[in-house]
């Protein structure tokens, strides 16, 4: 027998039932792991669940950790090298492929393919292409009468090589996002500007670029997050070497956790990474708000 109160209870329960799968997933795969990571960061432990409490020691250790400073410096170089380059190249491709061109859908797909390829596969293939002794890149240079380049064995050039490879994987993503944004810009604005005698560059600078502002903001945030999390390609292609020249923060976290068995320190480093991402996201949001106020 059903009473009116049962109906009300069911009605009250329904929203919870609808959100419960998402809540359970969030608890199981986000909130609880975050709580465990925070707990671990105050422990000296090689694994999960059997650590000694050490207070803030893991965080104070960071100040004197030379390898961490190197990894942070490399992360900065890697991020500065990848983010603007991928975005500028992606925007250029998007503008080019936003016009009627023969084979346009094929070209769009071709530029997007590297984004969907697994990072490990890209890393293995690129390690072969850029191998100093039997790589395709050096074979081409030699065919052109140039000498071999130490793509992955020079501390300076190896970082540039990695940046180039990662930019290649990311251009397609930037291109697709920018293409979507370009297609949402009303054509009337361009037509009116053309009638007024504006050049193509002027139309881009005064119409297209300002209207791409929100998309650019999102892309900057996403690309920075991607760069801070870049691991697989670097791990496969250089292992962080030669020496420490391509060791980035996320790789140092992995090394601390699993090679060095310092799970507590790795958790603290993970929180440092989260803090960096948080600061960056807040700065970005603030900049976006200011830009909106000014316009």
């Amino acid at each position, binding site marked *: *027998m059903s009473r009116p109160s049962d109906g009300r209870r069911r009605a009250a329960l329904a929203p919870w039932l609808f959100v419960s799968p998402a809540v359970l997933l969030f608890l199981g795969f986000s909130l609880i792991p975050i709580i465990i990571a925070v707990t671990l960061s105050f422990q000296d432990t090689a694994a999960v*669940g059997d650590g000694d409490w050490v207070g803030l020691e893991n965080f104070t250790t960071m100040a004197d950790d030379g390898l961490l400073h190197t990894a942070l410096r490399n992360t900065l170089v890697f991020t500065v090298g990848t983010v603007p380059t991928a975005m500028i190249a992606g925007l250029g491709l998007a503008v080019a492929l936003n016009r009627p061109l023969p084979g346009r859908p094929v070209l769009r797909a071709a530029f997007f393919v590297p984004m969907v390829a697994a990072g490990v596969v890209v890393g293995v293939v690129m390690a072969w292409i850029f*191998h100093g*002794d039997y790589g395709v890149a050096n074979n081409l240079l030699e065919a052109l009468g140039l000498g071999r380049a*130490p793509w992955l*064995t020079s501390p300076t050039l190896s970082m540039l090589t990695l940046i180039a490879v990662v930019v290649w994987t990311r251009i397609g993503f930037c291109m697709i996002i920018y293409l979507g944004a370009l297609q949402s810009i009303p054509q009337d604005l361009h037509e009116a500007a053309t009638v007024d005698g504006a050049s193509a560059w002027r139309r881009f600078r005064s119409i297209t670029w300002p209207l791409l502002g929100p998309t650019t903001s999102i892309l900057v945030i996403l690309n920075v997050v991607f760069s801070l999390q870049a691991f697989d390609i670097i791990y496969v292609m250089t292992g962080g*070497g030669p*020496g420490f020249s391509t060791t980035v923060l996320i790789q140092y976290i992995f090394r601390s956790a699993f090679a060095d068995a*310092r799970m507590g320190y790795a958790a603290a480093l993970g929180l440092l990474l989260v803090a960096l991402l948080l600061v960056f996201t807040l700065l970005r949001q603030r900049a976006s708000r200011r830009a909106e106020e000014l316009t």
Partner: protein
Amino acid sequence: MNAPHPTHAPHDLRRRGFLALAGISLAGALGACSGAATATTHLRLSSWNIPTDLDTYQQIADEFVADHPGTSVSVEVTSGSFHQWFITRLAAGLAPDIIRITPQQIGRYAANGSLVDLGGSSATNYRDDYSDAFWAIGAREDGLYGVFQHTDNFITYYRHDVMNEIGVRPPTRLDEAWTWDEFLAISAEAKKVTGQYGFGYGWSGAQTAYRWMPLIYQNGGSFLGDDGETPSMDSDAAVETLTFGRRWYSEGLVSPGNMAKSGGGDVSRTLFLTGQIGLMLNNPEPIPQLDEDLPDGWGTAPMIRNEHEASDLGGNALAVTRSSEHPELAADLVARLTSREKMIQFCHEGNWLPARSSITAEDIDYSEHTETMQRFIDQGTTIPLEMVRAQTSRYFSSLNTVFGDYLDLCFLGELSPQEASDEMMGAMRDVTSQ
């Protein structure tokens, strides 16, 4: 008064019936998952993803099951990075009962209670058929945490065409092995023949940096002190060894693409096959590819030496994990797998080198290269006990990473051998003081 909404009763009953049925089904499913419904004792064995080995493990396990009614054994694949895989499964209590583990990985887990002492099992009876060095891989003062199943090591490979052109006859006996000076002189000649480099070294990724360690022991040095924990890379012998390694690259005898942390797998093998080097120091792994791509074009000689002989410590042990609910039974299976008869079978099927001293290449009846495989077996006797203790120490996984870092920097010329020694010692002390 009539009962209100009589049509709801069947609906509620249907729902209640459905819920009751679902509850019963769920309870049944959980019961089945817990294994309560059957009396079978199940063991899980995990190995690297080598199809032949997985098949052989399963064959031996099936025989074990036939002798132990009420048991079952499944063979699984160790996936991804070993430490990541093992630490996370241990934390969840879901590690396999038995793992195949390298000597360089075992120390940490033997020391931190992740492995079970096999001291009470019949495997302890095997001690007499093992060299001190190979037994020390699993043995600790407080117990036996693994039994070495198969090994490999480094010897010298050469290309016939290059040796013929130089006019050198490579040595065949251990006591005739090329010394460092002889080897560098021949490599310089080989470089002239190939037009590229002289020789290569068989690293295959950053985690294999330790493969260069035998050279330190060949020169009378050591990586760690006698206690197996105190860093000792500041000795004259160690610095001289780093200087020797630096010469490989500064004299252009070895490709800078062939370093401890180089990506792309075993670079030396590709250089050897493509004729860019005339010699390589490597383990038995390249043999199948050499047979395919360079048949009859290669030969082997003993590993190079200096004051002493030493070679790389390769291979795997079998160990029982703390996740096991049946450690005694798992220990029995380890004993079965490392018995003389099964070790011969395993090495025959997988082309591995035996860990037991009494087994020869003739016993194993390799399908090919019996003489070369015996050369490897003989070379295995030169692996120093001190190096085994260092590589199976509790800090070694971390120390190996440090070793690879500073080898790279020294070989590239970013640090002088003395600076590399100083900085490596500092980084090693940071690790061992944790």
